[in-house]
């Protein structure tokens, strides 16, 4: 579904992503694993069209993706929930969701989808007119995922959805991600929390300073010694 080949992205003269290649298959959860500064978020931003790659190719459903403007990427069916959630803090829950659906023209469909988000996260539905900034971290993460879902993406990219959440809230978010996958949405996940992410991943890649150093299924990586030492804190 998404194919990234030899992607190089730079901030000024510093290469943040140094020629990585990976695939995301339809209906899978694929995880990019790595520490701070490994280039995970940079990769997602490049796919979203927010950054322009130096070289390399990106293909989505057989169409070239590099060089496509950010708003066109959303129209093609890719949505991103950015790092740090980046909600519109002063806007109501409803307005945040409407902005997620900015690229869509079908008013009735948007309303139905909004109700679906409220079914998925009842806490958002009961406080739909409150401004996003007043919600707790976990609730904001729900809203961030809901907002990204509003464009009816076929590929949903989540940048560190577990960041700063309590263990219970994290489990809830992770099970939501799994149920979204079961509904048929392909998910590209970026995480630092290796244990939780690998458990639900169909495929995972380990990124280290801009390069992919390991790849395999979630289970394979969970059992890998290097992953255990570096990311799971086991000896």
């Amino acid at each position, binding site marked *: 579904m998404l194919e990234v080949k030899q992607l190089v992205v730079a901030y000024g003269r510093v290469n943040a992503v140094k020629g990585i290649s990976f695939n995301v298959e339809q209906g899978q959860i694929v995880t990019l694993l790595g520490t701070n500064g490994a280039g995970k978020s940079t990769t997602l931003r490049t796919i*979203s069209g927010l950054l322009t790659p130096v070289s390399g190719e990106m293909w989505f459903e057989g169409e070239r993706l590099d060089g496509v403007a950010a708003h066109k990427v959303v*129209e093609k069916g890719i949505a991103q929930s950015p790092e740090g959630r*980046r909600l*519109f803090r002063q*806007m109501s829950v409803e307005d945040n969701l*409407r902005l997620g659906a*900015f690229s869509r023209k079908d008013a009735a469909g948007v309303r139905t989808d909004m109700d679906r988000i409220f079914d998925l996260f009842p806490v958002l539905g009961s406080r739909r*007119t409150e401004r996003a900034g*007043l919600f707790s971290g976990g609730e904001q993460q729900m809203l961030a995922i809901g907002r990204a879902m509003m*464009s009816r993406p076929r590929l949903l990219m989540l940048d560190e959805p577990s960041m700063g959440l309590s263990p219970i809230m994290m489990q809830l978010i992770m099970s939501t991600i799994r149920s979204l996958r079961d509904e048929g949405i392909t998910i590209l996940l970026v995480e630092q929390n290796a244990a939780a992410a690998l458990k639900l991943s169909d495929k995972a890649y380990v990124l280290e300073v801009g390069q992919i150093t390991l790849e395999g299924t979630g289970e394979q990586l969970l059992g890998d010694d290097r992953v255990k030492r570096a990311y799971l804190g086991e000896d």
Partner: protein
Amino acid sequence: MNVIIPDDVKVRFRVPARIIGLVGCTLMIASIFMSWSYGHTVLDDVGYWGAPSPLQLYYAVLPVLGVLLLAVPLLGRGRLGRWAKLVAWNTSAKTCAIWSLAVTAVMIASIAIGLGGLVNVDPGGWVALAGALIAVASTLFLPDSPDPNLYRLKSPQWVQILAIVGVMAVLLFGAAYLLNFENADQFLTFGASVVGVVMVLRQFGIFSWLSIAAANNNRVLVTSAFVVAFAFPFTQNGSDANMSIASQVLIFAATALGLNIVVGLVGLLDLGYIAFLGAGAFTAAILSGSAFATIDWVPPFWLTVLIAGTVSSLLGLLIGAPTLRVSGDYLAIVTLAFGEIFRITMNNLDGNDGPNLTNGSNGISAIPDLNFFGFDFGKAHVIFGIDIGRFANYYWLMLVVIAIIIVVFMNLNYSRIGRGWVAIREDELAAEAMGVNTFALKLLAFAGGAFLAGVAGAVKAHYDVSVTPDQYVFLESAFLLAAVVLGGMGTVMGVLIGATILKLLPEKLRFFSDYRLLLFGLLMVIMMRFRPEGIIADERRQLEFHDEDDALAVEIQEEMRAKHVHLNPEPKEWDL
């Protein structure tokens, strides 16, 4: 001031404090029956015993309010019920005392300056000052009230409508009255007591209740506002002086509303906005049929307006397309330069340095008055027995223009495009990630705002009779921006108020106009420190400026919920 007196002291002394405060207010009220000044030439003569002048009667309004605010809690202790919590009695009383003192000080200063020394202040003035000082000192001992939440007060619709109409009527006659003061001292005294009363009512919670009433009766509000604005020329008895100021205010306000889209909604800093007004004015002047016009073609005025708007918005596109890709500061610099380039270019299009289009620094003068279907804007007409002069004609025309601009602005604000604009302002990267075409939307705002300025410019050309490049200097851009920031970015009402203040004060206060840059600068600094969201706050803006203030957030949240239906209308089919 709150720090000095401990809370337990305040609670213990609140009853004596109220009584002493009442004495202070009574002294002030009593003082209006005394002579304030030895001479009779200042403040429209306040030098008589036993016969209050009109200005002294207005002066008494604040102390009378003070008496009510102090006496009701004193006499009604334990019997106020929910009214004890709905209204901020103590804080209102304190505000009232402080403003009474301010107005008293203004009056005494006017007497001393106007007649040459404090010896000219008669007992009345001193009694009033003593009363005001007593009132301020005693109200400092009152415990702080909780924030007013009068907006919780449910009231039948007819009461709300009546209140709106009442406010509008007060506005009309207050404005007519205020404008009729020829002398700065009277204008300042009356103006200060009006501001004082407004501040007290705000503390009291009246405006939070009114804003709910206004949101519930939007149509009544808009209609009555326009009826009042339309009726204004009839209160002027054919006086041209005030109508001239009023139409200048409207032209200025229309331009500021255009800038409000760019600055207030999208958050783009434009420091050369006056150029778009100038482009519209020059276009209209060139097509006006004036003897100095460089093009012979004279289209009908509606077409001129469209052409002027289009020329301005094309300039907006020209300047926006290369610069809107860069962020904040660069845009400010480029637009600042653009404003200057525009002025210099208009100076140079004189036939020597370039083609002759504008006659250079002489500009285009002798622009004929507008004429719609035989209605000559240059002539005075008599309607209902009242003279309606040239300026009133242009005033009405600008009123129509402003009405259109407000309708466009409100529709944009609550539309899909408006939501995209606000998203860009709040977090441009997040907006882009959501699929908002940020560049196109910013360009649209830039061109749209420029179009509105061009339309205002087309009317301004005829109103001013002549158009010259030096009318469109950077300072004017700065004033436009100041009007938007002072009034309240992103709001209509705020920008109207800001534009009125910035245009009216220098006209009425001559001494003020010499120092207007200094004083406006000071005003802006004070505003930025104490109320960065402007006089009238857009709720979202207010929250952006006070992100850490959770109590305010909850308060605004509750007010917004009370108004919810109107602030978050269900999107219409065409809206999405």
